[in-house]
């Protein structure tokens, strides 16, 4: 996937490839749209409370279940809270959780994949068995099980579970890439120079398998958003009452039967835009790296 030139470890050639990829991404409209939407939510997550006009936790019982208006852009929920403020502020938890879970999964997965691909043998076999077992249970079910057995839903637990489930999946991608690289001349050359194994794995091979790792990270981030939102909706991912889009949908969706659609549509739409934006970015990266 990284191509023959990069495999020689030639710095200038590698930079040329990177420039070409960046140029291709800048021409990709879907990728740019995804990047803009994600940037919007990242700003919302970072600045949240300072940019919303109304305190998202402020309950005003005089203004319950009001439809969208100039004063309440996305209306108010049955407790009289401003839906717009809650959606903006709610971006923080889902983004922090999804990114943390994906980072944990990627770090552990890359380490496992490098070791499995380089050493092969029993470690590789054990990892692949573990992967089969993990992929035989839906993530949602694993998370529900863990939450029940470890005592209650918490943000940390949810993040760790998603990271744990992702690790072997990411490891498989990295392993496949490493299997291809380990046969190449530059690895043999490093061995002849009597470089240590850690040096070969992390300094020689790792830089050459970054492309599949970046793509896999983005794809996994999309799945993490999916999983965090779903678990929060099921009341299993976060503490009840968290300012989280999934929890907001769970709290309010029954209201759509009495005509109050805005308190559900706003957080549901927010989840959709965030998930789609990450997917468009992943898609663009995949296209750029594969050509």
């Amino acid at each position: 996937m990284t191509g023959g030139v990069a495999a020689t470890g030639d710095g200038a050639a590698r930079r040329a490839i990177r420039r070409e990829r960046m140029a291709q991404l800048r021409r990709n409209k879907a990728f740019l749209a995804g990047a803009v939407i994600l940037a919007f939510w990242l700003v919302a997550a970072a600045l949240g409370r300072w940019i919303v006009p109304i305190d998202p936790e402020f309950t005003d019982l005089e203004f319950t279940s009001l439809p969208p208006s100039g004063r309440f852009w996305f209306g108010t929920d049955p407790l009289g809270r401003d839906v717009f403020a809650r959606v903006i502020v709610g971006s923080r938890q889902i983004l922090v959780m999804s990114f943390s879970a994906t980072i944990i999964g990627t770090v552990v997965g890359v380490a496992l994949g490098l070791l499995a691909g380089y050493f092969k043998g029993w470690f590789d076999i054990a990892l692949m068995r573990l992967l089969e077992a993990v992929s035989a249970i839906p993530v949602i079910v694993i998370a529900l099980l863990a939450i029940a057995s470890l005592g209650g839903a918490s943000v940390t637990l949810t993040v760790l579970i998603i990271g744990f489930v992702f690790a072997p999946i990411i490891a498989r991608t990295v392993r496949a890439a490493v299997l291809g690289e380990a046969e190449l001349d530059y690895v043999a050359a490093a061995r002849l120079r009597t470089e240590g194994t850690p040096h070969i794995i992390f300094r020689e091979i790792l830089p050459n398998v970054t492309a599949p790792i970046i793509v896999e990270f983005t794809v996994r981030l999309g799945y993490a958003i999916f999983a965090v939102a779903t678990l929060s909706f099921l009341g299993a991912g976060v503490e009840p009452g968290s300012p989280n889009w999934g929890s907001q949908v769970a709290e309010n969706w029954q209201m759509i039967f009495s005509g109050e659609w805005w308190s559900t549509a706003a957080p549901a739409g927010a989840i959709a835009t965030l998930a789609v934006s990450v997917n468009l970015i992943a898609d663009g990266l995949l296209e750029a790296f594969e050509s």
Partner: protein
Amino acid sequence: MLRYFLKRLGLSLVTVLIVATVVFFMMRILPGDAARRILGKGTTEEQLVALREQLGLNRPLVVQFWDWITSTLRGDLGQSLQYSSDVGELLFPAIGYSARLAALAFVLIVPISVTGGVVAALNRGKAIDRVITVGGLSAAVIPEFVWAVTFVLVFGVTLEWFPVTAFPDDPAAGFLDYVWHLLLPSIALLLVLFGYIARIARAGVIEALESDYMRTAVLKGMTRRAAIWRHVMRNAMLPTIAVIAGQIPYLVGGLVAVEVVFNYPGFGTVLLTAVGGRDYPMLQAGVLITSSVIVGFQLLADMLFAMLNPRIRTAVAE
């Protein structure tokens, strides 16, 4: 072929055994006492002793594990902690309901997604191709519950085209009535899987279209349409079967959220109730059955793949 089958079967059993082991020890990994976690604070010592006795928690772990495995193999899934009845009695009807929903979803997903992929491939690079590939994958990353809630809002409450529960009120309702009620939840499940399957089908068709045997077929005078039916479809379907099997865990995972929204008494609802009630025997059995079903389907897909693919068929026969 038989040897290949036995080998795959053995590996599947190993996978299920790993799942069973992980599930069993996960329930007991925490320091302290499972009985106390189940009953909560402020319970008397007698209650704890009684529950430990009931669950067999006062015996060594290995004995407990062995007991659980052997009684599960005999079909005895234990007693539910929440309801005073057999886990099997509660779980199997629920799984039956989920199976109906999943079956309908599956019947819709496979032909629609494959057709989408073929249409995209035959119109490669055109607008319809972009819509199917980018649109399909964008739909796939939006969680099922978002789709489900949106459908209830748009097609159930606003337009009133579809019922908002997955079950007919009338117990004597006919088959078509059941299908009608299950249609919206099935479409929510469909949208999450369409993109992946369509993309693989598209890639398979494109690869086959560009192949040498396709060129030979056209050069020897076969019409394009006949060549596509005879050569392309068969070769393009092989990778698609593998991907469809790989999506089954996602389909099962999606059931949980969709069942909640459509108020459907399936396995997802039971599992969620079991989580809330700390019903460990129910959870253990539920997860074990889920993973066995998933592994079973993957085995089935592998077999189908091997039978349809002459290269594997002959390699296996040797």
